[in-house]
């Protein structure tokens, strides 16, 4: 369900950008998705194909750049990637590191369109 909603938001964003720029045909769409967003890649790709039917994005490729979770560990004083399933623990020293540096992204980066 989540992925359908995300796909619809993406489509809306693309349609707005496309009408601003006079685009009539979108060939591919590039997005950035953080590990904490809970998005299942295959489900999003499937949803994209469904929601883009009969739109300017029909048949377009959705290219997903996955961004890992990165937190700032106060003890190590540097950015760390927690191991999956360990919450926001620094993988080196075990300190709880609730400052999320990246991993929440849900961004439209660009679109490739017919020239």
């Amino acid at each position, binding site marked *: 369900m989540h992925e359908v909603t995300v796909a619809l938001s993406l489509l809306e964003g693309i349609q707005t950008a496309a009408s601003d720029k006079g685009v009539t045909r979108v060939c591919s769409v590039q997005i950035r998705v953080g590990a904490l967003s809970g998005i299942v890649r295959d489900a999003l790709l499937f949803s994209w194909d469904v929601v883009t039917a009969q739109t300017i994005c029909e048949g377009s490729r959705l290219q997903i750049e996955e961004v890992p979770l990165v937190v700032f560990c106060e003890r190590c004083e540097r950015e760390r990637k927690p191991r999956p399933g360990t919450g*926001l623990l620094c993988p080196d020293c075990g300190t709880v590191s609730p400052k999320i540096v990246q991993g929440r992204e849900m961004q439209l980066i660009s679109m490739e369109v017919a020239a």
Partner: protein
Amino acid sequence: MNTRVVEIEESLMSKNDAIASELRARFAESGTLVVNLLSSPGSGKTTLLEESLPRLSQRYRVGALVGDQATENDAERLRRSGAPVHQITTDAECRLDAAMITSALSAWQEEPLDLLFIENVGNLICPAEYDLGEDLRVVLFSVTEGEDKPLKYPLAFNTSQLVLVTKIDIAEAVGYDRAAALNSVRQVNPDAQTLEVSARRGSGMDAWIDLLEQRVREKQVALAT
């Protein structure tokens, strides 16, 4: 076919965040404390509100917006309290967003409220991303759900200020491990306050109600100054 690349660089959340800011300004103006309740389906959000609305209504003007994918059942349960309740049926959407709150409020002719509860759709993934203009985000998990729930849904717990462990009256029967649960919460949000409650039996409810009343008063003081 010749193609060209059009840069966009826009967060999918930017539209929601803008509407949430408008809501926050509106609630600041009316002095309304807004509490967004998040949990899995069946953690006890509606039961918590069934018990909380009558108690809070004695001293404050309290209302609730209730999100569900289908049915008006939760709103009907809560209306028995006499407090104004509005159901938002989201259909395919797995969460409430700020625009749904704006639209529900426009259809609602209540006096300005002191306290507005927003009962989100039962889901710990999608609602975590959506700011609804709330002052306080509360995440519930019941003693039957597993002590590692915060580790499975870190964002929901990381973005909440208060964690309610619900159905505490059956903790012993289901072998709830308090230390493990609190440790899981700390691993994703060391600053969160945690309360254990049983809406059915009443334990912990005084602390919950006191906390809300305190926050309502703080918001009203902020309005007056």
